[in-house]
């Protein structure tokens, strides 16, 4: 697997004298302690993370945990004080923290696109003009933009809305415009900064589903920021959980769900809906008997099947490894 983005010991500090605050951060001090001693605000400290091509990684944490700050380092919107953020530019890894403004602009125009929580659309422009914005900045003529824009609008279900003003659209539709704008540049890396947080829950769920549908065909590398673990588990192939500017745990949803490293992560996990994550492996007890199901079967499917039969045999690679009953599911959910 090739890498798309690599964070190497990334530290981000806000303030006029970050160099005096870094040693304190290295000594393990919290953001509040550093701020009261030096007046500098810790954004991110020593974050290391590798993102492979085509995967969705979710940066997850409470507000102020540094997740957006880390995301915005990928396209250079936030300056990195120490460490490196490397992005695959088509031929090799380029460190965005050290490249020239011209090279950074080229990366932003063609390699990294972004979707914002507050949409960031230009309200005086039409929907189509907003979708074509990135292409326009890259120097494409109106003629060249037209077909790309039309295709993106169809993709996000706004084919008939191209001539409307953005301000006439609902929030959910505006964010579809934001998605189409990001897709339009065909950048292989997508940064999504809580794109669905400003939307109401029904629209949010629908857009999450649409994003997953689109991702099946487009196979972009997506770094997604969220404060909602349900959203993170639904979208993320892997999740990096951040607290106070540091990455505290990184892994697949299952790994995080079954083995939270500290109370902060456990607290997140306790407040989420486990039905979307658990599989037969997680809810089985010892024993055997009943029809066979693979170990990766989602718990929702198991419950549906348990209405007809009292027990299911869980198999892994053809060999039975355990048994699922209504009682084994209940005891896992309760515990």
């Amino acid at each position, binding site marked *: 697997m090739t890498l798309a983005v690599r964070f190497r010991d990334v530290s981000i500090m806000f303030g006029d004298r970050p160099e005096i605050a870094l040693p304190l951060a290295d000594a393990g001090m919290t953001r509040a302690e550093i701020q009261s001693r030096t007046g500098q605000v810790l954004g991110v400290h020593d974050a290391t993370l590798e993102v492979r091509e085509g995967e969705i990684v979710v940066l997850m944490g409470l507000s102020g945990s540094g997740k957006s700050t880390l995301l915005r380092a990928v*396209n250079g*919107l936030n300056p990195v004080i120490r460490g490196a953020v490397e992005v695959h530019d088509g031929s090799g890894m380029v460190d965005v923290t050290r490249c020239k403004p011209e090279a*950074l*602009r*080229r*990366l*932003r*125009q*063609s390699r*990294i*696109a*972004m979707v*914002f929580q*507050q*949409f*960031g*659309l*230009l309200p*005086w422009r039409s929907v189509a003009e907003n979708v074509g*914005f*990135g292409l*326009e*900045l*890259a120097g494409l003529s109106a003629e060249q933009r037209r077909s790309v824009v039309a295709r993106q609008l169809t993709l996000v279900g706004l084919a008939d809305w191209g001539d409307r003003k953005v301000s006439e659209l609902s929030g959910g539709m505006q964010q579809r415009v934001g998605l189409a*704008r990001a897709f339009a*540049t065909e950048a292989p890396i997508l*940064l999504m900064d809580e794109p669905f947080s400003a939307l109401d829950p029904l629209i949010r769920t629908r857009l999450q589903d649409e994003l997953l549908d689109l991702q099946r065909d487009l196979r972009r590398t997506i770094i997604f920021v969220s404060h909602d673990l349900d959203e993170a588990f639904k979208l993320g192939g892997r999740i990096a959980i951040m607290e106070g500017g540091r990455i505290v745990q990184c892994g697949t949803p299952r790994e995080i769900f079954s083995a939270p490293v500290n109370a902060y992560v456990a607290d997140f996990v306790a407040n989420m809906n486990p039905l979307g994550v658990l599989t037969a492996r997680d809810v089985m007890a010892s024993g055997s008997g009943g029809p066979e199901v693979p170990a990766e079967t989602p718990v929702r499917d198991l419950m549906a099947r348990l209405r007809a039969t009292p027990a299911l045999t869980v198999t892994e690679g053809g060999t039975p490894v355990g048994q699922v009953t209504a009682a084994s599911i209940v005891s896992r959910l309760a515990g």
Partner: protein
Amino acid sequence: MEWLTEHKIPVGDAAEALFGWLQRHATWAFDALAWAMERLIEGILWALQTPPELAVIAVVVALVWRLHRTWKVPVFVLAGFLFILNQGYWEETTESLTLVLSACVVCMGIGVPIGIAAAHRPRLYRLLRPGLDLMQTLPTFVYLIPSIVFFGIGMVPGLIATVIFVLPAPIRLTHLGISTTPEALTEAAAAFGATPRQTLWKVELPYAAPQIMAGLNQTIMLSLSMVVIAALVGADGLGVPVLRALNRVDTGLGFESGLIIVVVAIMLDRALRIRG
């Protein structure tokens, strides 16, 4: 107390010395400035006075119609022009319009770029602000005096005095519009690889357009308010009959010419008030 009055700070002497120095060493700059202003004024005056009155009026009314796409405002502007013709003030009106238009060209041409620069450099704006306050609060007559010294008598010193008084308005409003552009928008532009120039033209200026238009409107109104003062330094226009009426204590002439100024002001204001 005595000590205080005996040691007067030489404000007047300093100003005189400054203007004296400028007159000795920078005459060429003022001459060049005057030459450019004269060409501008001549050009506009020629365009307004060479064709027949009704042709000029027709063109202006057509332009207003194009801006508004309703019949109300163009009809009002037409009625205003006919009233001016009826009262016999066409020549003075074109002269005053020339002063207003030249002031617009100069003030917007200088004010918008300065406003943009100030919005991008907060420190520059802090430096500019006392200057802008001074330009707007210093009694106009005070800088009429040096402008006569540098530019003599006529339209040019009137235009210079007008520009000094009016210029802060477009600077302030452009600064306001550009500096209040939401960060979310400039950041989105940056994220898609915009150059600073692209951000200015595609995000900041369109966002600030309503404020910049308000700056244009203020520029016009404030310049019009200067026509009587410009007449004091020999600028032609609607200010001349007002001053003449004052000298002769001629109430009728005063009201007549004053009303024309009001009519021109309302016409310009309505014509330029475009709903976005």
